[in-house]
């Protein structure tokens, strides 16, 4: 499985990556991106991943603007530290959302 992580805090991205590799050893994290700008660029220039883990607050804005600028066809799992945006997340491609700090059991349940 090819996974893209969009998350502005290095610590959180690292934690998510570690848990993912722990749960699915053959999973491949393609990239870790921290801004809306980079994500839009990445999605335009690369083959779509199988799933995207996406934080809601990014370094240069909120991640929903990525959907306004590109056509994301793949399932998205939102990760957020605070669930104020969870409901809005379901309007886009989201299949699930998880609350940070990410829990192994919860992450396992997603797959």
């Amino acid at each position, binding site marked *: 499985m090819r996974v893209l992580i969009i998350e502005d*805090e290095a*610590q959180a991205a*690292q934690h998510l990556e*570690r848990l993912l590799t722990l749960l699915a050893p053959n999973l491949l994290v393609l990239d870790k991106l921290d801004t809306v700008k980079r994500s839009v660029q990445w999605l335009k220039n690369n083959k779509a991943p199988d799933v995207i883990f996406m934080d809601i607050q990014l370094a240069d804005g909120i991640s929903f603007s990525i959907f306004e600028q590109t056509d994301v066809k793949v399932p998205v799992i939102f990760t957020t530290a*605070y669930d104020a945006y969870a409901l809005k997340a379901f309007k886009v491609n989201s299949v699930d959302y998880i609350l940070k700090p990410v829990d192994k059991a919860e992450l396992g349940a997603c797959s």
Partner: protein
Amino acid sequence: MANKHLMIVIKYLKDNARVIVICIMGGSLMPLVYCRSCLHELDNYIFIALYSMCIWLSMWLGNDALHHGLDRFLPWTQRPVARLFASIAAMLVYTISVILFLVWIFETVSSYRLGDIRQTVLSTVIVTTIITMIMTSRSFFLNWRQMAINAEKFEREGIEAKYDALRNQVNPHFLFNSLNALTNLVYEDQGKAVTFIKQLSDVYRYVLDTREKEVVSIDDELRFLKAYLFLQQIRFGDNLKIDMELSDAQGQVAPLSLQMLVENCIKHNVVSTDDPLRIHIFREDECIIVENRVNRKITNAEGSSGLGLDNIRNRYKFLSNVPVEVSDRDGKFIVKLPILKSNESIDH
């Protein structure tokens, strides 16, 4: 030019119309009180009446002007005793010299004698003193009431700031983001994780400890700021760069003010690998300057009340004569926070 002066005179007369009418009426009745004989001699009546009018007018308007002048340079609320003596001295000097002058004029242009000058001076001084006392107590009361209102306002601003800071710190984002960063840190670097927990508790403790304070020493605020920045730097890594040159700054600041300014920078600007946020904190003369290059986030959803800066500005209105300066020009956002001297803090 002459026109302009005329306008000023007209405005002055208009503003004081009531006083002038009262003085003219009062003055024209005065001969009835102390010059019975004048009733039979119209010339004398007019003369005494004019003289009384002049005294009434000059005493009323002159003392009023003195009073306002002193209010500006030596308000009651700052040095009440000095003001009391200044008021008495100014009133005596003014009253006596005006009476001597008026008596001299009136006795020069006519043959009429105005009697014992000492008596005139004494009675005028007594009347003026009584009126001045009434006016003074009125202005003292008004000043005092304004002072009470200001104190109340200041207290409210302070409470709001503390509430804001507390809410921001206890703000779910701050807490969850901190805990989130901590999760990874526990795996990565346990020593750092312990420091993180320690700094997080220091931040909360400082917010709670300063709830009762109006000012804090720069040292204390910096220690708190460093704890706060440590937490933020764990979150943002090299994307957040702080240049701080404040080691020699003495004096005081409003609690949480520096942290609020830094938090504002982080909240409103991009903090990413491509565009790191650099915040420069340094001292310039009697100010602490917080400066950053503006690179605004597209959306700002972290729940900014937009009142942080206003709040700091309003709190400083009561703490210092120097206002907090904010400028947003040429791609730079700069806030100048005046350093408070220990004795300057609360003297309203």
